[in-house]
């Protein structure tokens, strides 16, 4: 419990400190150089600039350097010709038709000139870029409410706090401001000495959770994003118990089980970080996600650690099952670059 409080306090202080730093950045923003974007239409696709989600508000496009555009377009051979258009370094000859998509360099902010000529936005999001996004690393605190009374074996509260890290990559971008990012991560949980079963001198629950996730986020404002997230993974859980009294016996149980989380939340980050191209900018922020975890219940079986010298067969009781499903809240502090 003390450890949990310290973790929460540390997180609280870290977030406050980060808040101050972000505020300072907001007060004096450093504008990254705006790359140029050129929109073309009706020309066979040969080269194209990197793409990101189109801004929700109309914005003008800026010409993009031909070399970079060609490189990006080569990585997207399947893009429909009507979506991405090569410029071949040619200057803009005519404004695009009203039904032409907007193509924006990944991690670039929209410019006024592009928006001025922006076509009518497509109703359905269309993928406009892939494999050219930002990398996101995060330190996460995932809190799962263990509403099962049996959890009181390990903790006096209902909450199970998992600390971990995750890394994500903005894999797919869609117009309309949507980005899909796969993630990989790990978290660790540890709880011990709850008020139930005081005849046990040791009650320890430890778990390692390895997961993959897909996060679909949408930029709401330059500093705010909303997202949905689907996570699946495996949990390695170990329970160690020991009796008390004159003879102390050790018991241990291991369990491997899949677990899934579905959640949605908000990202608050340093503003305008996406104006810079990948690798040239750094965004800091935090995520707040509420969701629900689904996982099979953990069987709490008393399995003797040592059985040497045992001549009579032993039937050990179990402590029932510990539900591992429940609502969860994930707090994360991340850096995206």
């Amino acid at each position, binding site marked *: 419990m003390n450890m949990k409080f310290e973790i929460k306090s540390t997180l609280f202080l870290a977030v406050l400190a980060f808040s101050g730093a972000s505020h300072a950045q907001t007060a004096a923003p450093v504008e990254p150089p705006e790359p140029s974007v050129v929109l073309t239409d009706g020309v066979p696709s040969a080269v194209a600039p990197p793409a990101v989600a189109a801004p929700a508000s109309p914005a003008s496009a800026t010409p993009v350097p031909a070399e970079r555009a060609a490189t990006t377009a080569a990585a997207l051979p399947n893009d429909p010709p009507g979506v991405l258009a090569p410029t071949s370094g040619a200057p803009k000859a005519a404004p695009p038709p009203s039904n032409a998509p907007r193509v924006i360099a990944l991690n670039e902010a929209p410019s006024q000139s592009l928006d001025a000529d922006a076509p009518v936005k497509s109703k359905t999001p269309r993928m406009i870029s892939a494999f050219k996004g930002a990398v996101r690393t995060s330190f996460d605190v995932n809190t799962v409410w263990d509403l099962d009374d049996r959890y009181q074996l390990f903790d006096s509260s209902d909450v199970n706090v998992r600390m971990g890290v995750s890394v994500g990559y903005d894999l797919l971008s869609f117009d309309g401001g949507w980005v899909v990012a796969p993630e990989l991560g790990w978290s660790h949980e540890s709880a011990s000495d709850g008020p*139930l079963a005081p005849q046990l001198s040791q009650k320890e629950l430890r778990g390692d959770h390895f997961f993959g996730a897909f996060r679909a986020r949408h930029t709401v404002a330059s500093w705010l994003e909303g997202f949905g997230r689907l996570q699946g993974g495996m949990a390695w859980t170990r329970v160690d118990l020991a009796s008390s*009294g004159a003879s102390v*016996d050790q018991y241990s149980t291991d369990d491997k089980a899949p677990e899934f989380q579905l959640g949605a939340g908000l990202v608050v980050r340093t503003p305008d970080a996406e104006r810079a191209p990948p690798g040239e900018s750094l965004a800091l922020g935090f995520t707040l996600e509420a969701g629900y975890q689904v996982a099979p219940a953990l069987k709490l079986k*008393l399995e003797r650690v040592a059985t040497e010298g*045992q001549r009579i*067969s032993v039937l050990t009781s179990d402590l029932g099952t510990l539900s591992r499903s429940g609502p969860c809240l994930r707090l994360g502090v991340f850096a995206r670059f």
Partner: protein
Amino acid sequence: MFSIQRFFSIPCLLALGVSACSSSGAKENPSSFLPPLGLVDHAVFIDQGNDRAFLLDLSGNLTPHANQVRLPKAPILAQRRLSLAPAEDPDEVLILSAGDLDATESVPSITVLNKQGVKWSYKLAAAFDSMVQSPNGRYLVVKFSQTNVSNRLLFNRNEVAIIDLTQEPNELTNPVDRTIRGFGEPPESIVFSPPLMINGEERQLAVVLFKQVVALLDLKYLNRPEFTIELAASSVGAPSINLEQVLFDDKENKVYLRGSASPDIYVIQIAPRDVPNEPNKNDFVPSLNQLGGGGQLKDMALYGDAPERRLLVAAGANALVINADSNRVTSIPLPVSATKILLFEGRSPQVDTRETRALLYSLGTSDVVFLDLAQIEDRKQRNAERLKINSYLDVIPLRPTAGDASAPNQVMLRHAGLLGASIVDLDKRTVNAVSSQVDLKAGTPDAALNGVWVAPSYQNKVGFIDLSDPNKIQPKEVRLDYPVVDLLLFTQAAHKRVLVTHDSSLGRATVLEAMEATDLRDLTRAVTLEGFLLGE
């Protein structure tokens, strides 16, 4: 201009909210268990610390799971409900709970527990700490013990609650609270009579013993006052009688009383009395007689049917035979002094007919005396036979299952000084010595298997002395994996088993198949159950 700090405050508030929303469950107290009890095929473990009982089923396939039953607050005492015969066994446990002084809804109570769970719970008016059952298990008197140190501001040591265990709880009639009149002293003990025929009705009486006063309560009519009988006038400096033994003659409706400091036997005759239309008056009256025994009277026993009803009294160097009708006293000189009497039905080496005989003995000595009670008033000491054995500290009757006349008639005398025991064949008057590495104080007679289980505390061994064949007494033993704490017999059940508990906070016990008692070393059918006290 937005304030980003406002947004950073969101997770911080949520993080704090997590702590606030997380609720703590009911805290469990450290467990503290009363000595375990056995129903016919269930073991009962009562956790005083957490007001619960665990019922471990030993009837069929063994599992290390015990059913948990909630009990009223603060269980302090538990007893197996008595019965006169296995066929009448109600298979219940009685649990006295002290309640919680600070919680108005948690009052002292008696809980009747069977293998299905709580059957009945009787609320009590006071925080009693002692209970006494009638031998047939029908009545229960709950009272204050002599050593009670109540945490209540006021309490009356003469207050008792009387429960008819065959009737459901009723706030007005069951239990009944009574205050026993005394002469300034609290009751010492309570003894129940067998059913007596009084005025054509079967009644049971409760005899409340003070130091030299007795009170008689009619348990059928608890609205009627009790009789209080002073056996000797209280005067300054006069020695107290120190009443310590009561016998009932259910044929003659007599009560015999003996005190450790009195040379006399006190006899109360219960005579009917006609009290028409007065339901609150007793319809019998006691009358007191006094029999001069002489010397220090140590023990007494009733035998014979009217008109041959006799009272046998152990009075040190003599045994007294008192004719219950004429009150004539015959003194029998004994070969050795005796202070205890054990009546038995059996044969003698000279007479091959079963009749009532007596074994007289004195703990701490190395002799016993057999008395053939037939014609003893004429034959006197010629009916006494002395048998010399090793010095002994305990005499454990090994009564075979009722009705089995062919079973050997034996007692076990636990040795003093020497470890081991002597098995005395009461019919043949022979002795078999069983040596042991341990004190056999832990011997537990097993009527069903006709033997004695020996489970010395904190040793890894359990032994069984099979006494079914007096010509072949071969002790068996088995070595367990853990030291013994308690031994419970379930040999009256269809599936005969023995449960040996071990020291473990989680609950650990080894179950031995008692049918295999002849070959205890076969451990393949033994099993250790572990973790059954962890609850659900």
